[in-house]
């Protein structure tokens, strides 16, 4: 059974000018269990990872990432974005079991 996907954190810069390339940073609480570890009884701990991250702006996919077990626990993902207009970001993290965790953030222009 997959562990619940933890709390996400998302950060956009506070002051953004139109045309500026900003950095969007995300962090989510997750063990990223590789499936190669054993518990104290010697049983294999089943694989349980965040396998996909998608960032959409105004409904349009702008960045995505497929994750393998080689990504560290509590995945940190950051990427640039060219701010042309204000709008809403939606971020989705999906685990092996297909469960999703979403977060949103507003892009405001100065």
């Amino acid at each position: 059974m997959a562990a619940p996907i933890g709390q996400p954190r998302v950060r956009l810069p506070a002051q953004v000018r139109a045309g500026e390339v900003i950095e969007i940073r995300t962090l989510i609480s997750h063990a990223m269990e590789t499936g190669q570890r054993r518990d104290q009884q010697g049983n294999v701990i089943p694989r349980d990872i965040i396998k996909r991250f998608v960032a959409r702006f105004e409904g349009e996919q702008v960045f995505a990432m497929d994750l393998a077990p080689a990504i560290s626990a509590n995945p940190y993902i950051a990427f640039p974005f060219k701010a042309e207009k204000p709008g809403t970001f939606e971020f989705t993290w999906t685990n092996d079991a297909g469960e999703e965790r979403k977060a949103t953030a507003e892009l405001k222009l100065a």
Partner: protein
Amino acid sequence: MRGWRGAAALPAGAAAVLALAVAAALAQGGGEAPAAEPVRAIPDPQSGLEFTTPETRAIQEDDFQNPAFLWVEEGEQAWNHPEGAAGKSCASCHGNAAESMRGVRARYPAYDAKKGRVVTLEQRVNICREEHMGAPPLRIDSRPLNAMTAFIGLQSRGMPVQVDISGPARPFFDAGERFYNTRRGQLDMRCGSCHEDNYGRYLRADLLSQGMSNGFPTYRLKEQRVISLQFRLQGCVNDVRGEAPPMGGEEFTNLEFYLAWRAQGLPVETPSVRR
């Protein structure tokens, strides 16, 4: 004249011992002897941050990148969340943690007159849970307890560590000091074998720090989670191939008290990032 020259020729250490002996003799003459003020082997301690790589430092210095803040946020939620028979949350009694918890991490572990012993911050949280909230204690080094101490500890960030070892606390400090200085394990090492005699040198590829506790609880890159100081202490004892006492027990609690005194003056870095 002869006596004076003789004393001057003594090594500084011997002179200090003499001076202490004289002071002790004088104190005894006056009745109750106050415990001699302990002297730190490292008078100007350096944080573990000084012994880490630029990459690890960069993670600690950015509260967004620092994964320990996932724990801090969980601790903050728990702070405001009622639990137990009394229907209370931490906030019911302590209100806004930014005010009520400011400085708390810096002065813990501390002597508890009611318990008649020194208690760690973890134990203090559990005392509150059991006695005031009617909630079960949290397991030492468990995620919810580390989240709570990370959140409480953050409220003291930047404040100098300052524990009170005087009066009834002193025997617990002395016990911690004895543990610190006792050689143990198959490798027959005391804590100071690494953290006083060899800091700044490499143990295989690990740069030895001074073993300062001012950043705990810390996000440990190896563990990929927030760990408590006593979890790390168990690791240290295991490393010298000794048998580690239980977390939350008397021995480690006294040792944690002694370690806080060693780190006196260093700023609280909770929640730090260490390898």
